[in-house]
């Protein structure tokens, strides 16, 4: 129960940190005011962009140099549409880089699992027999899981064994899933 109090505290701290981050100074390149002015008399249509804040996002501030003068300025400006936009290029960059690294890691892991691991295991002969025993549970016994529940709670002191054991269990699970979904079309057809 105290674990939950700890969780509560840590999440509150995290929220506080996040709220301070949102008030970061905006990079000046990440805000802009875009004004589109259609053709007027003999002036061509043009697009004007400037990195100004919301209150300065009007035609008079942004359309510089003004192509018409004097009395026509008002008429010209009435036709222009100005829009304020902002973005966060930092978040975009970070997201894409994180994604590409995750994708690369997954692809590497997949290559390792399908190609390299069988080769490595074939060299270490003893291990390959252990794997084959574990993979034999293949066929879907509806209540096989029940018999395994107790055996799972037996402790394995060795860290490497634990990782190996977990990975074997995960691979078996994925194999089962693949059989149900792709081969027998029982789920998710």
């Amino acid at each position, binding site marked *: *129960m*105290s674990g*939950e*109090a700890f*969780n*509560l505290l840590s*999440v509150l701290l995290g*929220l506080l940190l996040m709220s301070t981050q*949102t008030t970061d100074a905006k990079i000046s*390149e990440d805000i*802009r005011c875009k004004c*589109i002015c*259609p*053709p*007027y008399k003999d002036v061509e*249509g*043009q*697009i004007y*962009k400037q*990195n100004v804040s919301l209150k300065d996002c009007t*035609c008079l501030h942004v359309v510089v140099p003004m192509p018409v003068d004097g009395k026509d300025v008002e008429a010209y400006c*009435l*036709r222009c*549409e*100005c*829009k304020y*936009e*902002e*973005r966060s*290029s930092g*978040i*975009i*960059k970070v*997201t*894409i*880089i*994180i*994604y590409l690294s*995750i994708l690369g890691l*997954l692809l590497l892991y*997949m290559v390792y699992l399908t190609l390299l691991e069988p080769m490595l295991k074939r060299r270490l002969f003893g291990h390959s027999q252990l794997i084959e025993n574990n993979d034999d549970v293949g066929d879907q016994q*509806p*209540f096989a*899981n*029940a018999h395994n*529940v*107790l055996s799972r*709670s037996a402790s394995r002191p060795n860290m490497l064994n634990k990782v190996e054991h977990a990975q074997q269990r995960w691979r078996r*699970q*994925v194999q089962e*899933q*693949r059989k*149900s*979904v*792709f081969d027998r*079309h*029982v*789920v*998710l*057809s």
Partner: protein
Amino acid sequence: MDNVGYCNDNYESLQNAASDDELVDIAGATLDFSFTEDVPPLDPEYSSGYDIYTNGVNGHVSGISGNAKLMDLLDEPVPGVGTYEDFNTIDWVREKSKDRDRHREITSKSKQSTTALVDSITDAFSGWLLMVLIGLMSGALAGGIDILAYWLTDLKEGVCLNGFWFDHEHCCWGSNKTTFQEMDKCPEWNSWAELFAGSSEGAAAYVLNYMMFMLWALLFAFLAVILVRAFAPYACGSGIPEIKTILSGFIIRGYLGKWTLIIKTVTLVLAVSSGLSLGKEGPLVHVACCCANILCHLFTKYRKNEAKRREVLSAAAAVGVSVAFGAPIGGVLFSLEEVSYYFPLKTLWRSFFAALVAAFTLRSINPFGNSRLVLFYVEFHTPWHMVELVPFVLLGVFGGIWGALFIKANIAWCRLRKNTRLGRFPVLEVLVVTGVTALLSFPNSYTRMSGSELISELFNDCSLMDSSQLCGYVNSPDNRSDSALFSAFSDRASGPAVFSNTLPDRPAGPEVYTALWQLALALIFKMLITVVTFGMKVPSGLFIPSMAVGAIAGRLLGVGMEQMALNHHDSAIFKSWCSPGADCITPGLYAMVGAAACLGGVTRMTISLVVIMFELTGGLEYIVPLMAATMTSKWVADAFGREGIYEAHIRLNGYPFLEPKEEYGSKALAQDVMRPRRSDPPLAVLTQEGMSVGEVEAMVADTEYSGFPVVVCQDSQRLVGFVQRRDLVISLDNARQRQEGVVSTSQVFFTEHVPPQPPSGTPSVKLRGILDLSPFTVTDHTPMEITVDIFRKLGLRQCLVTHNGRLLGIITKKDVLKHMAQMANRDPDSILFN
């Protein structure tokens, strides 16, 4: 020991409680058991037995009467008792009572010490904290998915020289070299032809762009399908049918796990960007539910209790739709209407809270730009006229017909994939479909752009910011409506925004006609290709393609109406409200209504769809057209077939989903549906004493039933309780391993007081702790209507049938589903799971 043939005559059974039970309605929050309070125990054994049952399951050893020293070992909680097998239904009644006991214990202990008080407060808050975490995580993931989808989609067409991580719009964001004529182009963004061949015009450049487009599309689709296949096969498809089934009580282990989450997020982006005709809304619901499931493991209250966890999953489904569209209220209503099975009022408030947190997180990440929440922000607010209800209803009819046909075609295709050789080559299938889609969609600019971009363009009425072909109306030398100037001075000139609304009706220029026939081709293409795409082995959603089909149809109709109004403005229909120079018809509105109609026809959503649409577009003015179209499309689609696409997929997969809204109209009695039938072997029962461990194990091994009734003795068949197979197997294994001297001839006792054993004999196994002493029963003459209602409202897995107080048979949920399938003339063997 001569217990053979001797039956204990005590009246231990108080099983007629089921007929005294108040039937609980779904909206009414918790399930109530009257019998625990009202019915006095006839037998002093009963009350202590009940305590032991609940306490035994919760792991407390208090309340055991003195005779149990032999069996103390078994009164400790055996790990695994109370959990469920994969592909089985949970026992809602048991889970709810476990939670109530836990809560009662915490409240009673909280008065004892300060730590206990703090514990009870954190327990109460843990639900809200969990909602905050779910909202944060889902919002963050959804924001990331949006950013990545924009980037990867544009990557098929070119690359940004300023930084490869920018998509087209962001690449040209700060550029000063964009011109009025070509608002989209800028020198920083190079298409692939420009990058490789140096020029962007000409046949060679076109072919090069085409090839690169197809190559990227195939690469993305290939990566998506091999990742799904290698790491998480459960990540394919939409996810909503399975989540519906999970929320009704089914267990699919691994479906909401962390690998499924990672792979679904990664491959969803790839699948959406590969140009396939699919959306990301359904998969986002799955992603949000995965986040919820993973975060539930932080809190014991939710980790150990399957019923409480499903409350959280209902809230997570709301969060999923909320982040997909930026529509929190629509998300909650979607969860209520489409996805959830039991939706107590507490969940309503918590779902809304979680959806808001997620929307706020999404806003901070700002993937749509301008801190806007909604996906297709629509800026026009022109009024509509009553006469326009006729085309809106027509759009509703179109949506309904298309929805019904789409469901039939898609199910036929999926069935083909399931049963024939087509299903053996999933990777090849994905590649072929992607290749065909890319090949056919590149030439037409409306199919080349992504679904949401297409819908945005169709929804928006023409303003200066729009440079699409659809706005190429006559009246301006360079194809922009500059009669805006005219209207600005003649009407009210209240600012630049007014221009987009006061554009008068204008005759269509040649650009508009080109756009129209391109759109018609796009409509046909999308209608056909979505049938084949939905259900492939990559994450695929349905909302955006259906809305795209509807939006195209709506816009076509809208432009047609506009031109008709312009050319026949003297006729009776248009004269009263559509004078020349006034703005009367907004094709963008027709697109919106068409999108709602098609989506409603496919999914049969009603109020949640209307709320999502008006939250999407930010305008309350258009509720009545949206409602008219949605209602019409639902009625028309229901005339062809009662099921929406998700129920149809549930039926296809054979999940044990008891439809809460289906009406049942047969006059069968419980004895017609129960097992064993006349030709079946007799009911497999256990007796409360007199069976040995070997006999019990033999019975368990010989049959495949998921539970066994326990009777007083074989002659009297008076019911004691019900025991689950999984609990039995685990307890017997545990007894063999942990308890000394237990062999196959040891006796098994389900009674409270075990008769004393001679010291030389083998010790007995006491299994009272796993026995459910309050199974639900109906009599054999109970009409099936009431029985089905009981199953639905209480979430039962099985129900025992008695005759004159003696056990006669059993009805399981699978039997109920098979019976309902037979009534509806469907194949009863398609129900695969229990």
